[in-house]
């Protein structure tokens, strides 16, 4: 049984005067125990919304799914109180911007300790009055079990001088340190799953490497599964065991990391891989996927990628199919279901060769931003 099993997730945001925004349009995603699963997509693909839907942190949105199970239990059948028990305890979350995601007027140690108090099995009161007393009057005693556990966690995530750092405020720390604090905070309740929403996007490449290593270590040594949301294929290559690729609200491909990079099936995936500049390569143009991702209200029928796909044909207007390429590798593309021979689903002759190339950390899958005047031509690499 998968740790997290979501089938046919649809998230709609009602809009006052205009059509509702369907941010997620039929997404399946699963995270197995003991793995790091990457969720890759451009901005606007719906990956963050998907992540937040697991924690039920989407206020005002309409969330529907055929299945939304965590550990076999339907998350959306639970009451708000039950969800509160799960958040922070069973499932932890790490956010992208650590400076704004941490409370500026509380010490870092306290922000971790309160999670321990609320969800861990420490013998400390976590009621409203005691929390307020701790916040405004006495502070948390350094001998309290929750504080000591917080210091331990800081050490676990690789922070030097954890006891000192625990007494500091977020603005006094570096970006990398803050991100580690966020991870420690997510670990406070001893969760089985951590959702990391672009945890390294705001960091330098070298700092990023450290954080990714940390996440890998947590997964391997502490038996924490991770759902890692990113737009960076490099991160996926380095850290993830398996991947789901999203585009404009739908899943395009799902595979193990190796399968995705070695044998990409979907034209979009191929396009992404092709856009990745090879480390050190200076010849050839930077190629991108021409055009830009459609707004949720302007999606074409059928496959959202139709308008930019070089291999699009009439069947692409039909609802997305599911095609199994291999064990654990599936793609949603009409080329595979409508045609006996999907043919050379390539962007250009050298696509396959590129797909084998080594992708280093820090390289980003680029596509045209909406608003850029004109896309670059598709040329031979």
């Amino acid at each position: 049984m998968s740790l997290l099993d979501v089938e046919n997730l649809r998230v709609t945001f009602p809009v006052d005067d205009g059509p509702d925004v369907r941010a997620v349009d039929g997404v399946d995603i699963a995270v197995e125990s003991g793995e790091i699963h990457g969720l890759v997509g451009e901005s606007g693909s719906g990956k963050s919304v998907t992540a937040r839907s697991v924690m039920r942190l989407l206020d005002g949105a309409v969330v529907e799914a055929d299945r939304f199970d965590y550990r076999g239990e339907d998350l959306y059948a639970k009451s708000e109180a039950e969800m509160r028990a799960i958040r922070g305890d069973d499932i932890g979350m790490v956010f992208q911007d650590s400076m704004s995601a941490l409370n500026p007027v509380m010490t870092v140690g306290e922000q971790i300790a309160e999670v321990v108090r609320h969800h861990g099995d420490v013998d400390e009161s976590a009621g409203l009055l005691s929390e307020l007393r701790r916040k405004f009057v006495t502070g948390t005693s350094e001998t309290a079990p929750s504080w000591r556990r917080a210091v331990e966690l800081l050490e676990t995530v690789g922070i030097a001088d954890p006891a000192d750092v625990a007494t500091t405020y977020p603005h006094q720390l570096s970006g990398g340190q803050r991100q580690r604090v966020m991870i420690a905070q997510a670990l406070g309740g001893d969760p089985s799953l951590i959702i990391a929403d672009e945890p390294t996007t705001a960091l330098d490449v070298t700092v990023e490497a450290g954080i990714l290593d940390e996440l890998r270590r947590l997964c391997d040594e502490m038996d924490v599964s991770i759902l890692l949301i990113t737009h960076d294929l490099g991160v996926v290559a380095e850290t993830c065991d398996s991947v789901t690729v999203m585009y404009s609200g739908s899943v395009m491909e799902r595979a193990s990391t190796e399968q995705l990079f070695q044998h990409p099936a979907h034209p979009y995936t191929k396009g992404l891989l092709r856009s990745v500049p090879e480390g050190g390569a200076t010849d050839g143009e930077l190629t991108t996927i021409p055009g830009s991702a459609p707004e949720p209200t302007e999606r074409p029928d059928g496959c959202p990628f139709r308008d930019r796909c070089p291999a699009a044909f009439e069947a692409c207007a039909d609802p997305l199919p599911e095609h199994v390429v291999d064990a654990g590798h599936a793609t949603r593309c009409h080329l595979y279901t409508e045609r006996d021979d999907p043919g050379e689903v390539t962007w250009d002759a050298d696509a396959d060769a590129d797909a084998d190339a080594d992708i280093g950390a820090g390289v980003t899958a680029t596509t045209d931003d909406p608003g850029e005047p004109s896309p670059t031509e598709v040329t031979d690499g």
Partner: protein
Amino acid sequence: MGIQRYVAKRTLQALLVVYVVATTVFVAVRSIPGDPARLILGGDADADAIAAVRAELGLDQPMYVQYARWMGDLVRGDLGESIFTGEPVASRIIGAAEPTLSIGLVGISIAILIAIPAGIVSATRRDQWEDYAATGVAFLGISMPSFWIGIVLLLTVGTAIPAIPSYGYTPISEGIVPWLANVILPATAVGLPYAGIITRMTRSSMLEVLGEDYMQTARAKGLPPRVILFKHGLQNALLPVVTVAGILFALLLGGIVAVEMVFGVQGFGRLLIRSIERQDFPIVQGSVIVISIIFVFMNLFVDLLYMSINPKIKYGGEA
């Protein structure tokens, strides 16, 4: 180290401002048309008497000598004597201080105790009836002159409830309850506009905080809603309110003075107005300087308070 330097710098600035005020007052008083000595003695005094009074007041000295004496006296706390009663100005002011301070402090307390919870409720129940009610009352509050509120209270509560006197002042020495009963109406009149502003500021600040990322993090940690609101949100929301609260003391000032007139309280405000009417310059001078000093140091205090509750300032930058 940064903090001490900052405090020292601000204190110096405050003293500088007070100095400027004192000088301005000096100049202003001496610009008043007419001869103060003649004013004191009346129109038909003879030249010798006038000369004597002028000598007594030091008005025959060159300006810079007068100025030096003035400053010297000030620093020693000697504000001169009242033209009419001969009493030292300083003691007259101190004597009139208790009622004014009572009204002011009780007014501010009432305002804060009501306004901040009202603002929080307004923000958390946005666009529901609680919000409309609180915002409506707040708007009304900031649109009413304090003295008019006082008059209305006097005519309604004051006449309807005999236990609440609508005139005068009862010193604390005669008991807390009588004191409070006498002070409550003027204090409410003074506090209501202040409360209005604080409510609106708290509301908008709280709304902003509620949308911040760290509040979502707190939710993601599974904390109960009230812990999130009060432990995570409140302090952040109150920071801007503290800043503004200090600036608004100026608003209270006019209110207290006027309210004292309405309720016949023999306080500092009344003293000030009467002295202006009677052209009792030493008292006017002294009062202006005292008000200035209080005001400037009040603002300094609020600034320091803000610094102490905002860790970003208290603890500096990256380690």
